[in-house]
């Protein structure tokens, strides 16, 4: 019973979690490690998770990404050669290049602002759920969100138009998420 229910959760959540991890850490392999760690944590905690396993996974993801970021900043890696990432995922190379700017810009945000942006916009969490996942207050989420948007505007600058489909402005109000 335990195994089947976890399998269902993992089958439906893994890709989404991995993509969120990729946006958080900006690296294919780190995202794999992060997602594996999060899924293993959920697996161990599965009998204790009475509510929404996604909420548990998002919180674990946010914590693991913050730890990863701290670890990476203390132990910077020297790449063996340029273009390694594209070489190991050739099918996705075009997509990586096309959206490299967005990934690079996200990478320049401080860890918590980046987490707020990914949780709010990619995972579509409300401010309350984002605050719960990051173990901070809703006010902190709002302030970090405002700073993140400001940073993004500064970083993207003229390129806003290049990325813009003209669909909608950055939402900041509670309940604006689906």
């Amino acid at each position, binding site marked *: 019973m335990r195994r089947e229910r976890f399998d269902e959760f993992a089958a439906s959540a893994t890709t989404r979690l991995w993509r969120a991890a990729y946006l958080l850490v900006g690296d294919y392999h780190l995202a794999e490690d992060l997602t594996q760690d999060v899924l293993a944590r959920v697996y161990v905690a599965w009998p*204790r998770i009475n509510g929404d396993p996604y909420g548990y996974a998002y919180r674990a993801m946010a*914590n693991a990404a913050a730890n990863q970021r701290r*670890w990476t900043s203390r132990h910077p890696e020297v790449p063996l050669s340029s273009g390694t990432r594209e070489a190991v995922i050739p099918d996705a190379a075009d997509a990586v290049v096309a959206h490299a700017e967005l990934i690079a810009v996200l990478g320049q945000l401080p860890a918590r602002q980046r987490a707020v942006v990914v949780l709010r916009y990619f995972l579509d969490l409300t401010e309350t759920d984002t605050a719960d996942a990051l173990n901070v207050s809703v006010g902190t989420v709002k302030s970090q969100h405002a700073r993140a948007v400001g940073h993004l505007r500064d970083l993207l600058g003229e390129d806003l138009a290049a990325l813009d489909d003209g669909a909608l402005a950055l939402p900041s109000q509670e309940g604006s998420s689906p």
Partner: protein
Amino acid sequence: MTLDLRQEMHAATAELNPSSDLVARAQQDGRRRLRLRRQWTLGATVAAVALVAFSAANLDSMRANHPERFAPSTATASAIAPPAAVLQAVAEAKTEGTVSGPVEWVRTTSQKVAALSHDGPGSPDIPIYAVHLSGHFVLNSAFVPPGGKIPTGTELVVFIPVASTDQGGDGVLLNDGPIDLSPYGEVHTFQP
């Protein structure tokens, strides 16, 4: 000019997918962590049983050599005797390092200490003991990612469920800073 950040992030990752064996690896990792946790618990139980057996074996000789220590006391007990589960946790902790100074413990609930123990949001609220030890601890049994360091610290808090259930409530917190258990219940102290 506005930026549809949501759409851009989905588009940036739409063509990217994790390895096909990621879930299988995660399950394998999860099973390994569960196995380590069971081994840790089993080892601690064996150590506790050995400690109790050793104490019982030496009780008679101690009673003969120091009869004054076993005379009925007229003083009122000033502290609650630690439960067996707390003593067991201390025995477990001694396998992970050295314990110095008195041991503090409180009877509380898993939700009350959730912020301290970093427990997940779905945990049921069950009665637990929180046992705080000072000394030097090296969590050799902890999961460490490749290249990571084995956690060490000077303050160890062990969380154990009061009743033996499979509802969780167990955990370990390792820290270098001071830890105050008083917000979580009445703190009792004893010398290990």
